């Protein structure tokens, strides 16, 4: 049999000039390059940017989006989407906070953590069930659940911020420094990325998620219980949402019921910048983290330069477009 010839005509049967297993790395390399170029630029403009204290706060600021992007990778791998990480974070962080707050539950921190994770898992379970068993479109099901979370967070918190100042040691989860100079939140993100990487690439969880995203029917016909694994992807995403809620509330020493609106967009942008295809079948764990760091580098660098928030949004939008465009050009004008 002669070798396959990539034909530019074909769309769904995708073939590229670069061997597939390197493609994702290329995208990440590209993004890493963008981050480095940006960092050099910011450093030239403001030497302060490169100070360790700034870099470590930049990394800390990427943690929430990074964690959410990790969870989202599993859902996006299946070809789905989850809009609940943002306001789901609000809801789960309120739940954690109510459990441990001296004013309310006053229970040990680990109970609150478990509560937040369980709430996240439950959210994911509902999302997954709506999508995998009740056959709803992911975007609309999670859009509705996003509103439910939003309302639920406000109702639970009684419309107020739940303060956690009085809970001793809680803030250390995110901002303590087991390794001097490196906030714990950053270490947690790295650990989570390693775990997510293993689950995605070395277990059937990730394999089936990618298979489902690639061709759901084929996966089903191969005897895989597609619905169950699809639900699992949403549950994983929900758990990561719960983790992001814990990290956010730890960082703020408080849980605010409205904080999180729009955060899902940053998480989606991070995943996509990092090379996860919204069409499913492809995911990059490392890329998700890099994507989150890229976004935060832009925000931080521009803040350090004294650029107003509104311009930062324009720049972020432009960077996303450029990143995606460069990726497309490199692949020879292919859609995916």
């Amino acid at each position, binding site marked *: 049999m002669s070798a396959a010839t990539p034909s530019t005509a074909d769309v769904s049967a995708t*073939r590229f000039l670069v061997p*597939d297993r390197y493609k994702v790395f290329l995208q990440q390399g590209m993004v890493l390059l963008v981050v480095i170029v940006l960092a050099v630029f910011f450093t030239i403009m403001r030497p302060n940017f490169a100070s360790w204290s700034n870099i470590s706060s930049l990394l800390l600021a990427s943690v929430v989006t990074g964690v959410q992007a990790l969870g989202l990778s599993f859902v996006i791998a299946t070809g789905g989407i989850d809009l609940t990480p943002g306001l789901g974070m609000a809801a789960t962080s309120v739940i954690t906070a109510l459990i441990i707050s001296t004013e309310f539950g006053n229970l040990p921190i680990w109970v609150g953590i478990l509560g937040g994770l369980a709430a996240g898992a439950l959210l994911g379970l509902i999302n997954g069930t709506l999508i995998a068993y009740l056959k709803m479109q992911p975007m609309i099901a999670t859009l509705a659940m996003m509103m439910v979370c939003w309302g639920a967070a406000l109702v639970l918190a009684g419309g107020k911020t739940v303060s956690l100042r009085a809970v001793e040691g809680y803030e250390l989860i995110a901002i303590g420094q087991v390794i001097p100079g490196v906030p714990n939140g950053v270490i947690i993100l790295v650990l989570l990325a390693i775990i997510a990487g293993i689950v995605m690439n070395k277990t*059937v969880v990730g*394999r089936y998620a990618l*298979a489902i995203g690639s061709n759901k*029917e084929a*996966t089903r016909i*191969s005897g895989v219980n597609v619905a169950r694994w699809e639900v699992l992807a949403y549950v994983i995403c929900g758990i990561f949402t719960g983790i992001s809620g814990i990290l956010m509330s730890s960082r703020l020493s408080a849980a605010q019921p409205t904080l999180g609106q729009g955060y899902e967009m940053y998480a989606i942008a991070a995943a996509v910048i990092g090379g996860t295809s919204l069409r499913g*079948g492809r995911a990059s764990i490392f890329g998700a983290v890099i994507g989150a760091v890229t976004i935060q580098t832009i925000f931080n660098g521009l803040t350090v330069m004294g650029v107003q928030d509104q311009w930062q949004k324009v720049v972020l939008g432009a960077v996303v477009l450029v990143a995606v465009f460069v990726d497309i050009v490199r692949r020879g004008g292919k859609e995916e």
Partner: protein
Amino acid sequence: MTVVGTDVAQEPETAPTGALLEARGVSKVFPGVRALSNVDFTLRGGEVHALVGENGAGKSTLMKVFAGLYQPDGGEVLQRGKPITLPTPLSAHLAGISVIHQEFFLMNHLTVAQNIFIGREPKLPGGVLNDDAALNRQAAELLERLGVQIDPKIQVGRLTVAQQQMVEIAKALSFDSSVLIMDEPTAALTETEVQTLFRIISGFVTPETAVVYISHRMEEIKKIATRVTILRDGELVDSQPMDDLTIPEIIHMMVGRKIASDVRPEPRAATEPVLRVEGLSTQPLLKDVSFTLERGEILGFAGLMGAGRTETARALIGADPTSSGQVTMNGRPVRISNPGDAVRLGIGYLSEDRKRYGLILRQDVAANTTLASITSFMRFGLLRDADMRTSAATWVKTLSTKTPSVRQLVRNLSGGNQQKVVLAKWLLRDCDILIFDEPTRGIDVGAKQEIYDLLDRLTKEEGKSIIMISSEMEEVLRMADRIAVMCNGRITGVLDNAEATQEKIMELATQFESVDIERQA
């Protein structure tokens, strides 16, 4: 209707365990279609059992019942004499039934090895992490055993259609199944690969195992099958040992009429060229493809799979970018940079992959038929739906498309009838040049004959010019006035029908076969 021959279900069972797999009185109804009515089917150990019938006869439907994809509305399925239920594909796998479906079911983003062993990944000690080394090793062994040269670590989406078909076959064989069902496995294969497949089938069959083989290619069936079952309109016609039937008899039972074969077109006088293609090249396959098409002529394109015939057609109509090439129509040079240009110039292309490139499956027959000519149904900028349906209905009648109405969704039609809808689209557009890419792929003998008659009528009576790409050599010889043969992206020769033989075509089609061109980047 009367059932001819012996009723298989009444036959005394030879093996003590009973038939390997059996359908008794199975019925399946889809809205508006009775796909199977009261069908009996018995598969015994050691058989290669051919299942034949016209398009829409219900072959695939019956097999999907065995595959756990459809639940029958009536009747039962038995394995070794015991009734079984197959609620899911997994239950069919567990019952030892492997199916290679007519459509591919592969995960394009996963590797060959990952596809073959999906759901059965080998694990590292501990049972949590995948053992990918073992996975790739097992896949390599399996492919090696089958004599297929495919890298197990390559993504399936990068494979050719033929290679993908071989992966499907490998996957089916990787289960330790006793029953292997193949639904038109050779539709995308070339001669050599068909040989490989037959070798695999022969190696597979033991007294404890059996194969169901569905195909429209009669020679294949004659060659490989030991028993044949014929379906017509969802009903059982007959089931006989292969040796007791001749091909004309089988065809007769399939369609209820005789079909002429071994005809050649009448020699025709040369006419003026309507289309001249010079030096057409694409990255990286086509090299300097040149040919002319005369008015009223059928120009056949023969060649092995991957020779570049489809690519020639797609490049010609502007669907793919070309690196060089000059197209002249009626003596005037033309620029075709996208399919829109081609359609405006009166060139219509019927893709070999009708589901992907030919049809809008979710829309109805009327919408599909009128898609290329929609602007002619406009008055004051508004579309007239009634007119669109009327003219679609005319074509349904002309082509005898089997559909309850023009409002039927195209995805509910059988493969052959879908093909007719694509055809109607271009006939309605009234294109002067029609490019038929595998026009009879997956089409039964009866419908084939209708399409042949139609092509003849289009050229002889309406003065249309046709390029017909086909992998079936008899078909090319039966239809084409001249035959261009391609190999590895070049035209290696153009034969007049009179001088053409299967041998000559084969010779030209394999001319470059020895030269191993590595086109990998």
